[in-house]
């Protein structure tokens, strides 16, 4: 400690020490010289020889004082001051370079922070590495969840699991606080009482509920609020604990509020409040009791391993139980297909320390595309700045040469030059951080884009993330800045020092070769980004303008919720019968109908296997079809064509024989040219079991009564998918939601208010979640595509401008260096046009080389994004040519400016400069 203090004092005594050192060295020099004089050497010669031996006094001093850490600190400080002076001296260079770096670093930081929030952040639970979720992995079944009976059996595996909690997240919409009802949807976590204990999360205020709050069915009307919801609804009032709110007619008491950083185990879908699972029937009032308690509801199961139990034995134990459950499900005489399915099924333990999110899978591709894009952009930024540095370093050759001659070591100089790079990139990083915060809001728009889900399907919902600048983000930005500074700074620095010896040789080279190579690389990289951006823009345009198979302008869609108050079945039928009939009577409405799922709202059943007697689908052909339950006149209302057969009518009810209408795609797949009307099909588990077993389908249940034209259903890309429709009256238990459809005479949007009023008049308790046109719904569905197109377009343009900046720098520099050569040429009779042509040829040769390298790479890379494209091939000629053309045109302008300057060189002035 005393040492450190002494050294610190030393820092302030540097001057004195330096003088002392000078004196000692001078003393040494004198004595050595005197000694030589005594051997008969002339005094001046003696001094000279000793000096030679000592080498540079400066470097000796540097070496001696380099032994002290304080000197190290001091010299770095000196480098920094020197660097600041240099950067201030060239503000233009500094601003351009810092901005170039800010774009590169900022874009990467923005992507990082979103990926971090979605994938890598740990749950604020205690020992999160012990947490796992159970996942069923069964061929032909997309349901990964558990029912309650299974959950109880896994929980009993106490040798490996310390505890287990079951969770089901439900969207509700009729919350009443202080007598005021809240229209917006809330997300309710229905969880077993031990949920917070399993996670090891304590309430921020009040208390969390425990297993004791989950004993009596219907007997624990208590809730724990999330921090966000508490802020939003109770304004962060600490007195909220103990107050009540109402949900579906039951009054709940607030027990506590979770800490601010906990939004539930499902990352990207924040839970608003948690209620003990014993209150399930009170929350999900629409489900019949036996269905809830009988456990057909899907639960996510969160387990905590016992201390010192690793994943493998726990998974093995769970697997044994899983196979036992399978055997029980199949009974004593399972079919062959079922046995095979059981054999191929596994139960997996998925680490849950980072939480859980089905959207990770969905967003993997878009985020990967963006990660690669911003990586390329950063490389381009680095190349631009490296280019600027090379140009500038050549201007600094004199300074560097003098300092080398004065005895500064090249390691010392290298450190100095790198210090400048680090400062530049730190500046860029700081600006980049600001840029990233702005870009984040856009990115969060990307991940939360997509239609809000109205129905009860299993399609993943949009993601809601909160990204605030935190330590991890800062650390990332800082490390990236350092890495960047090495990337762009090292080569120019080394070159600057090395080239001193070869100065005369360098003078002969027309332009700097590394500079040209960097420009070529920049052009190539930008071209890759531009082609990618073009492909995404093309995809978006195709999706927006494609034939939907239905009328996009004259259809109004009205989503209602059946999950309110009363049980659904008394309620659903009128929505499919009387309500459309009344709406159709409104002036301006031509026809009205209804379906369960509606269009383009992101929700849908996962699809079912279809089987047709005597026509087993080929192994390579997908026999999965989507389906919907519809009211009569549905196709007419949407503007779809009935190609053959008849529409449903009111006689197709529960007592009549079951019928279906299939779309043209399905007709073609299963019946080829022949008419399917009158044929029979079957679907669901019956179909999949039999087709796996390879047997013929006996008395198939459903008769085909009609064929309709193809139309989009769930998403903008599925127009030509297999689809069939059934009359709503023949499957009342599946009427989980309802979407009314109206065909209007004028533009659909103008009817929205009128329809809303009419619905309120018909049934004031019927919630209208949303009224939208098909056109608007399509736009919402395309949110992800649109944002990918916008972001890649933005990145592409940024890359293009950076590449042109690099090109401009290199050409200007080469023109400046060749001024005298150009003067000579003109003196010998070259016309300005010749000079212009010469410089432009030089420029375009670099661009051509960049395109020649970039295009094959881009085309190869485009294959990997093929699945994200629609209507454009990955090697779309128009896009590729357009990108190349744009690149060449903008580059030509960047090169033309300095070329024109070259053409205006006055030969006399140029030669006088020499």
């Amino acid at each position, binding site marked *: 400690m005393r040492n450190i203090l002494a050294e610190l004092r030393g820092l302030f005594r540097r001057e004195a020490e330096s003088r002392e050192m000078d004196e*000692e*060295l001078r003393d*040494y020099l*004198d004595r050595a010289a005197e000694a030589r004089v005594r051997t008969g050497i002339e005094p001046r010669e003696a001094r000279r020889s000793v000096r030679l*031996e000592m*080498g540079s006094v400066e470097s000796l001093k540097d*070496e001696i004082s380099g*032994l002290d850490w304080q000197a190290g600190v001091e010299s770095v400080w000196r480098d920094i001051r020197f660097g600041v002076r240099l950067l201030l001296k060239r503000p233009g260079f500094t601003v351009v370079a810092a901005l170039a770096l800010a774009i590169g670093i900022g874009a990467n930081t923005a992507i990082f922070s979103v990926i971090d929030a979605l994938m890598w952040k740990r749950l604020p639970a205690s020992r999160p590495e012990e947490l796992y979720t159970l996942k069923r992995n069964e061929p032909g079944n997309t349901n990964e969840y558990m029912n309650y009976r299974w959950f109880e059996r896994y929980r009993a595996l106490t040798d490996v699991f310390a505890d287990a909690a079951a969770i089901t997240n439900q969207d509700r919409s009729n919350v009443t606080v202080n007598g005021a009802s809240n229209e917006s949807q809330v997300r309710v976590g229905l969880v077993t009482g031990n949920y917070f204990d399993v996670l090891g999360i304590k309430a921020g205020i009040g208390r969390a509920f425990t297993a004791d709050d989950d004993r009596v069915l219907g007997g624990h009307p208590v809730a724990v609020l999330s921090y966000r919801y508490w802020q939003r609804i109770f304004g962060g009032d600490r007195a909220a604990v103990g107050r009540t709110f109402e949900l579906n007619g039951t009054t709940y008491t607030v027990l506590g509020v979770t800490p601010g950083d906990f939004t539930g185990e499902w990352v990207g879908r924040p839970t608003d409040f948690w209620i003990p699972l014993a209150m399930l029937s009170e929350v999900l009032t629409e489900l019949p009791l036996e269905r809830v308690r009988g456990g057909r509801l899907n639960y996510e199961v969160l387990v905590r391993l016992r201390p010192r139990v690793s994943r493998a034995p726990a998974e093995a134990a769970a697997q044994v139980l899983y196979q036992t459950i399978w055997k029980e499900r199949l009974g004593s005489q399972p079919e062959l297909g079922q046995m095979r399915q059981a054999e191929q099924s596994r139960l997996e333990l998925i680490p849950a320390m980072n939480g859980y999110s089905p959207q990770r899978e969905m967003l993997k591709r878009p985020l990967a595309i963006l990660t690669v894009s911003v990586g390329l952009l950063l490389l381009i930024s680095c190349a631009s700045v490296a280019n600027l540095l090379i140009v500038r370093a050549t201007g600094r050759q004199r300074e560097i040469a003098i300092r080398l001659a004065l005895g500064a070591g090249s390691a010392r100089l290298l450190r100095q030059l790198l210090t400048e790079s680090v400062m530049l990139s730190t500046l860029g990083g700081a600006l980049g951080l600001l840029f990233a915060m702005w870009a984040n809001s856009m990115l969060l728009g990307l991940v939360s884009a997509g239609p809000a889900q109205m129905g009860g399907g299993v399609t993943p919902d949009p993601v809601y993330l909160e990204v605030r600048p935190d330590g991890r983000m800062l650390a990332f930005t800082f490390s990236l800045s350092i890495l960047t500074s090495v990337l762009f700074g090292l080569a120019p620095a080394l070159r600057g020092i090395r080239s001193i010896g070869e100065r005369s040789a360098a003078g002969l080279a027309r332009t700097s070769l590394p500079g040209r190579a960097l420009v070529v690389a920049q052009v190539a990289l930008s071209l890759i980004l531009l082609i990618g951006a073009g492909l995404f823009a093309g995809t978006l345009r195709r999706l927006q303008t494609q034939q939907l198979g239905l009328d996009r302008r004259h259809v109004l869609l009205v989503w209602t919720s059946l999950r309110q108050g009363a049980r659904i079945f008394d309620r659903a039928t009128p929505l499919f019968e009387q309500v459309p009939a009344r709406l159709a009577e409104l002036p301006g409405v031509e026809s009205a109908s209804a379906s369960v799922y509606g269009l383009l709202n992101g929700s849908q059943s996962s699809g079912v296997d279809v089987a047709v007697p005597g026509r087993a689908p080929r192994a390579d052909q997908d026999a999965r079809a989507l389906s919907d339950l519809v009211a009569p006149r549905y196709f007419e209302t949407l503007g779809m064509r009935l190609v053959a057969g008849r529409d449903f009518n009111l006689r197709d009810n529960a007592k009549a024989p079951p019928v279906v209408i299939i779309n043209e795609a399905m007709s073609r797949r299963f019946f080829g040219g022949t008419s399917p009307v009158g044929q029979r099909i079957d679907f669901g588990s019956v179909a999949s079991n039999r087709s796996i077993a390879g047997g013929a389908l006996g008395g198939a249940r459903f008769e085909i009564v009609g064929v309709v034209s193809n139309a989009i259903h769930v998403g903008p890309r599925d127009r030509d998918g297999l689809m069939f429709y059934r009359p709503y009256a023949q499957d009342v238990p599946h009427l989980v939601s309802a979407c009314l459809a109206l065909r209007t005479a004028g533009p659909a949007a103008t009817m929205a208010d009128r329809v809303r009023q009419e619905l309120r008049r018909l049934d004031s308790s019927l919630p209208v979640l949303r009224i939208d046109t098909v056109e608007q719904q399509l736009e919402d569905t395309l949110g992800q595509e649109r944002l990918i197109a916008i972001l890649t377009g933005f990145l592409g343009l940024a890359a293009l401008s950076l590449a042109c900046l690099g090109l401009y720098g290199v050409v200007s520099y080469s023109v400046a260096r060749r001024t005298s050569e150009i003067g000579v040429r003109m003196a010998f009779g070259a016309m300005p046009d010749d000079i212009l042509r010469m410089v432009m040829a030089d420029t375009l040769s670099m661009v051509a080389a960049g395109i020649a390298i970039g295009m094959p790479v881009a085309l190869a890379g485009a294959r990997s994004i093929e699945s994200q494209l629609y209507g454009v091939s990955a090697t779309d000629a128009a896009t590729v040519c357009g990108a190349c053309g744009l690149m060449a045109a903008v580059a030509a302008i960047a090169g033309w400016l300095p070329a024109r300057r070259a053409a205006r060189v006055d030969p006399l002035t140029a030669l006088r400069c020499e």
Partner: protein
Amino acid sequence: MTLVQGTLDMLILKTLALEPLHSYGIGVRIAQISQGVCEVGPGSLFPALRRLERSGHLSTKWRISENNRRAKYYALTAAGRKKLETETRDWELQTAGIARILLEGRNA
């Protein structure tokens, strides 16, 4: 002839064991005693002195020298004396070992 790695510190300490000296004097003394076999230039002498001073093996003092000039004199500290002892012992052990290996080679 270049010095064996790491021996310069030992030579300096040994030289100063007799009496305090200034930097030039140290270099001259090493050359004299070794009869010109070991020559230490300023390029290695000054950093070595600085190192030893920093590590507390040497103390320094400005004094008036024999010809009435100010000079920086270096002297051994207690720690320096101890280091010299251990270094000498280690050196003897090492050279004896090395000598045995070299002689072994010659006899064969």
